[in-house]
Every structure is written in C-alpha cells, then in structure tokens.
C-alpha cells in the first residue's frame, strides 16, 4: 500500500493552481486513497504567489509537505518553482512551465527577475529531473490560453509517478467542466501528457 506521495503546485494567483489540487484530490478520493492538502486562499486571485499541496497515502496526516519530502513539484511559473526549492530532494521530480510572469515590482525597479538559466541551474543542483515545457503554447494549441493549468496537470501525469489512475482523473475532468468546455481542457491535458512523455524518452 502506498505510504506517501507529495505533490506541490506553485504559481501565481489566477493561474488555476487551486483548481489543479482540487481535481487531483477528487480523483484520489475516487481511487479510494487517503488525501491531505492545503492552500492559502484569499490573496490567491490578486496576482500574489500561490502554492497548494496534495498528499496521498496511508501515512499522510498533516496538510503540509515536510521539508525535503516533495516527490513532484508542478511549477506553473519558473520563479515560483524556485521559491520552493527547499522542499525538494535529489529524488524529487520537477515539471516546469517555462512561461514567466514578471511581477509589477520588477517594472518599478523594486526587485529583479532571474534569468531562466539561473533558475534551471539552481533547480538542477537539487532535483535529478526537471521536465520543461511551454504550457502557454500548448494551451493555445488546445484552443484556449487559460488551459495552461490542464497542460501542466497532464504533464504531471505524463511522468507516470502520480498514484492516481489516469482514467479516474479524466472522469473527474469530464465531470468538473461544463460539457462545452470539457473537450478543450481534456485536449490541453493530453497535449501536456504527451509533451512530458516525449521529453522523458
């Protein structure tokens, strides 16, 4: 029996981080797995940093991932992935959306945004595998730029590490979205899934 699998999703308010963890959690419960998770809401719609945890397994009790115990980090935004580097270990997998969101404080000259190279270099010193993709581009391909979170969810499943059945997650997606919107979201999910599988080959 699975003891513990920890997923951390990080990003910026408005990227759909909370929805991703909700869908993962619902699917895990349908698969009869024990689930714990947590997020900080409230500030989430206003462009601030957002992170959400989903923990699955029989020995999971608390809502937060213990230091160094993150198995899979889904980074919706490069700098926001780096912000959580301390939760990673050499066995952690990172799935990273390369599309930057530069905060207004950078425009005002109050802070700096690192280069992608710097971010990659840091993440690669810890995690053995960082899978990179341009989720925004794949979302456009799917037919809607706002489905980048579904692309990333697909990519996360593409790693083959998440202990939830693929068909369960898809059934949850189908049930969650209105009939009109389900196909584009599922297409985005599939594009992310295949992009991840390609890069693992």
């Amino acid at each position, binding site marked *: 029996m699975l003891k513990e699998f920890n997923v951390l999703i990080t990003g*910026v*308010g408005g990227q759909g981080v909370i929805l991703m*963890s*909700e869908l993962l*959690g*619902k699917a*895990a*419960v349908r698969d*009869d*797995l*024990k*689930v*714990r*998770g*947590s*997020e*900080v*809401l*409230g*500030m989430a*719609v*206003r*462009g*601030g*940093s957002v992170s959400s945890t989903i923990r699955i397994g029989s*020995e*999971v*009790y*608390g*809502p*937060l991932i*213990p*230091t*160094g115990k993150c198995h899979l980090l889904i980074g919706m935004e490069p*700098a*926001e992935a*780096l*912000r959580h*580097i*301390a939760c*990673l*270990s050499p066995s952690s997998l990172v799935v990273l959306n390369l599309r930057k969101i*530069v*905060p*207004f*404080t*950078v*425009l*005002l000259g*109050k*802070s*700096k*945004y*690192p280069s992608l190279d710097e*971010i990659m270099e*840091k993440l690669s*010193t810890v995690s053995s595998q960082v899978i990179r993709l341009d989720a925004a581009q794949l979302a456009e391909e799917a037919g809607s*730029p706002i489905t980048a979170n579904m692309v990333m969810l697909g990519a996360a499943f593409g790693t083959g590490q998440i202990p939830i059945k693929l068909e369960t997650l898809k059934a949850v997606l189908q*049930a*969650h979205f209105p009939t009109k919107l389900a196909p584009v979201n599922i297409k985005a999910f599939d594009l992310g899934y295949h992009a991840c599988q390609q890069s693992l080959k």
Partner: protein
Amino acid sequence: MKELAISADAPGEKLFMLGNEAIARGAMEAGVQVAAAYPGTPSSEILENLARVAPKFSIYVEWSTNEKVAFEVALAASICGVRAMASMKHVGVNVAHDPLMTASYIGAKGGLVLLSADDPWAWSSQNEQDNRYIAEQGYIPILEPSSVQEAKDMMADAFRLSEEFKHLFMVRSVTRISHGRSDVVLGEIAKKRRKGAFAKDRSWLVYTPVEARRNRPLMIERFERIRRAVNTLPYNQLKLADGARLGIIACGLSYSYTLEAIKWLELDDKISVLKIGTPHPLPQELVKRLLKSVDEILVVEELEPFVENHVKAIAGEANIPVRIHGKDLIPLIGELSTRKVTEAIIRLTSAKPPVNFSEQDRLGEESAPLLPWRPPTLCPGCAHRASLYAIKSAAQKVARDYGKDTEPIYPGDIGCYTLGYLPPLEAVDTTICMGASIGIANGLAHVVEAPIIAHLGDSTFFHAGIPPLINAVYNKANITVAILDNSATAMTGFQPHPGTGHTATGEETTPIKAEDIARACGVKFVEVIDPFDLKKAADTVERAIRFDGPSVIVFRRLCAIMEQREKKQRGEKTVPYYIDQEKCSAKCDACIKLLGCPAIMRENGKTTIDSSLCTGCGICAQVCPYNAILQE
C-alpha cells in the same frame, strides 16, 4: 459520474472537502437552523456553503453587518431553543467579545456554537491572536480539530454537547484546517426542525448586577461539569507506550504534525502521546496519567503556551515530578510543521535527523536573493487604484498650503484597498482593525496639522465605520473620509452586504447608501463620485479636504472582477486599451510609476498593455502625458 454535493444526504460516502466545507457539513448534520457570520479569511466559506443549502434544509442564513450582530443573532435563536451558530475569523471574535462574555452566563437552550477561525502566521490577518484565551476568559469550552474530518465531526457534535451541558461551545479552527483539504466520510443530516419560542424569564436573560451575581456561580458549575466530562470525549486520546521516557501532548492540528514527526523519526511505540481535542478545559485525568508515566513532557501547540501553562499548573498541583517543555522548543511564532515538531523531538531524544535540515535551508537561502518580490496587488481595472490615485494627487496639492514639508496622512482599513500600501500608490499609513481608519483619523485631527484622509470600503464602513464618523461630527474632527464603494466584500470573496440590495441567500432587500448614512450622521459635505473620472474625483477630494469640518466622499464603482463576470453574463465584450508606440516616449513611465497596473508590461524596451488582462478602465490613458494610450 457526477460528483456528490457537500450537502448530499449520503451517510458513509467519502468526499474530498475543503475544511470550511466540512465545518458547514457538520453544522448541517447537526440540524443547525440559524447561521450568521461576517466574512473574514479563513472563515468565509463556512457561511457561503450554508447559504447555498439554506432553502433545502430550512436554515436561516445571514451575512450580518458585523461579528457582534452575528453572534447576537445566533444567541437569540439559542435562547429560543433553536440550534444556532456564528462563524468568524479570529479578530472577528474581538468584535463579538462584548455579548460573548455575558453569553456564557446565559448558557444555551438550543445548541449554540461559535466558530473561531484563527490565523497562525497571519496569512490574511493583522495579527496572530490565539482565541483560546478569549474562550478561557469567558468559561467557554473549546473543541479543536486535528484534521478536516474531525472538524466536521466536532462541529456536528458541538451542538449536541452544547445542549447536554446547556452551555455555548467554541470550535476553534485554524487556517490549515479551514483551508485544508481531505477525504471526509459523511454522516447523516438531521431533518427535524424545531419551532423557536421565547419564554420570558429575566432570571437568566436580563443582566442587571443581581442576575450577574446569580448566574456566575451557575456558569462555573456548568463549566466544572464539562471539565469532568471531557476526559471521556473521543477527541482526547491517550496512547501510552511501554517504558516511554518522553510524552507528547499535542493540541488540535499539531497532533497531525506530531504523528508524522514520530513516524519520520521511527519512534513509533517509543513515545507516549496525548491528543488534545479540548484545550479548554483540558482532560485533567488523562493529563495526570501521562505526566505520571514519563520523565519528560513536550507540549506541541501553535501560537501561545496555552495548554503548556495549564499542564504545568496540573503537574504543580498534583505534585508530579516531571520536566515540562513547550515553547522553549516549539516556536511561539507562526504555524507549526512536521519539521518543527521533529526538531523539537530530536532535542529531547537521541534520534537522528531524517534529512539534513540545514542543507535544505541553505538551498532556500541561496535562491532567495534571486527571487522577485511578488505581493498580491490590486487587480487590473480595480476602482481602488483610481480612487487612491485621485486622493493622493489632491491631498498632496492641499498639503503644500500647510507648509512645504507637510505630508498628507492616509489612515487605512481592512480590505482589498489595504494593498494600496504597496508602491507605487503607497496611500495607506495605518492599518489596525475594521473601522480604525476613521477612529485613527479622529485622533490625528486633534494632534497634527496636515490633511487627513481616511479610506475604507463599503462593507467595512457598515461594519465599524459609523460610530467613529459620528464621533468626528460630534467632536469636530476636521477629517475627510473616503468610502471606496465597490458594492461587495471583495477581499473575502465578493459577499453581499447592506449596501448591495441582496442578502446571503440572494433575496432582494433595501439597499442602504453610505451617503445617506453620512448625511444622517450630520456630515455637511457629502458627495458621490465615479473614481474613473480622475479629474472630477481629484477636484472633489480637494474641495472635501478644504471644507471646514468632517467631509465624506463616496467613490462608487463596481469591483472589477464582478464587473468582468457580469459583462460576460450579459455577453458584452471588454475593449482593452493599447499603447501607440509612436506617441509613447517609453521613458516617462508615468503609467507604470503612478499606477502599478498588472496589465501594463515592458517588453524589449517597449511599454505595452496585455490585452488579456486589461479591463478597459482607461485610467492609464488619463495619466499618460503623451496621450499615447488609446482604446482598441
């Protein structure tokens, strides 16, 4: 396969729930009939979920004007024999404190539950106050869940306990319970509804000194009965390990971190653990049994040493020679985590760290300087940005008349507009509590010579802004009050309030206008303006500040997020603005430096507008000195 609703009458089914959904579900299972609240993170979703099922289960649900009223509404229902609850964030309980301290003298007829959602680390709050002390002060027993499942179970049980002991109960949640998520096994929903009846009886309902003196001993007696009973409640559990030298007493959510820490250190069966679900009153018999069985105790709890101090008192009174640790090893500040508990246990045992914590810290510290500062910010199209810009430009102009070094002062309040403290607006000089903008402005007016412009939102004005406004008129405080009316309690999730014309359950009601209240308070300068007309808004602010006596300006514009939603429903298109690159100097940066709108970006040396974010408010076009910003 459709997902079950959280109100599904499906006992035994398992659902993935947010903590606040589970709390609402628990109340449904108990057959709550009256629920009142004022929105506040992390508590708001409780009442929202109850409002959705109000007709289905015949629950009376209201957003009250503030927490004091919410609690009084629930108290009245309880007095009439109906199960009732009030839910609020930790600082909301301060507002309800007055009736609360006498409510415990009254007790409860219908089950009465106060849900306090505390916010360790102040994720969305002005402080980290620990409401267990408020409960202690009022002889109010606390149920504190260790998980989302237990939050539901305790909530359902709290009403029963309240009736059994004829006393009100507090259920204390924290952010990581209220905004935690978990699989939850549902219970049965109570269907029976009682009819409320008010039986006149001044002996327990009219508090003159006579009744206070009569009822205080009765209250203490009820509480002592509860103290004895908590030893056998399922929420308190003692697990003694054979030959254990160390015992851990873990309160509420800390219990889940403790379980994980013990597993992480592979110390299962080597440490005795007392799970505390009732920090007040503590299960004294269980505590004593644990104290007597070990050499050392570690008390694990978030924030203050509440349980720790009580355990120390129990050990002292019973003369038990045991070393008690708590806040010497567990941080006083912020949330706990499995790691923090693990590190404390390592200090008391010879256990080896499961990971190299300092190495992990180094990773974070080395990356921190690379990271951009990403605070939450006012949304694109937010009317508060325009209002604060207009207020600032007018106030700075008037301040020059006071003297060349005079700065206007902007006492601020609690809401989205608090984010106006950030650059570039920097138009918030104080934020303390609901309504304090006007109260602080009152005091400032009597000690400094400068333009004083308090600003607060519409919901905050109805909540706590009216008495200090009356005070300003009565005591002649020469201040300007800007009511930023976006027709919503936006920060907490766009809940309706007395100004919106809608109740919690969507019924139409009389909308109350802030300007009518201001006039009725005796304010002689009251004007209503549209913040998107920057020039007129600034002119009005200037006249208001120069007016001799208190002045009120209502800045009225619907919340941008709600506006976008409504437009979508109406099938209307948003027409975004763009920057004409030939006209733009790309050097003056006025749009960026004055407004800080997230839709304005800089790419390859050009200033541009992200058309997917722009709501077409046009404020940037009004501040551009080159008229380079145009609508598509």
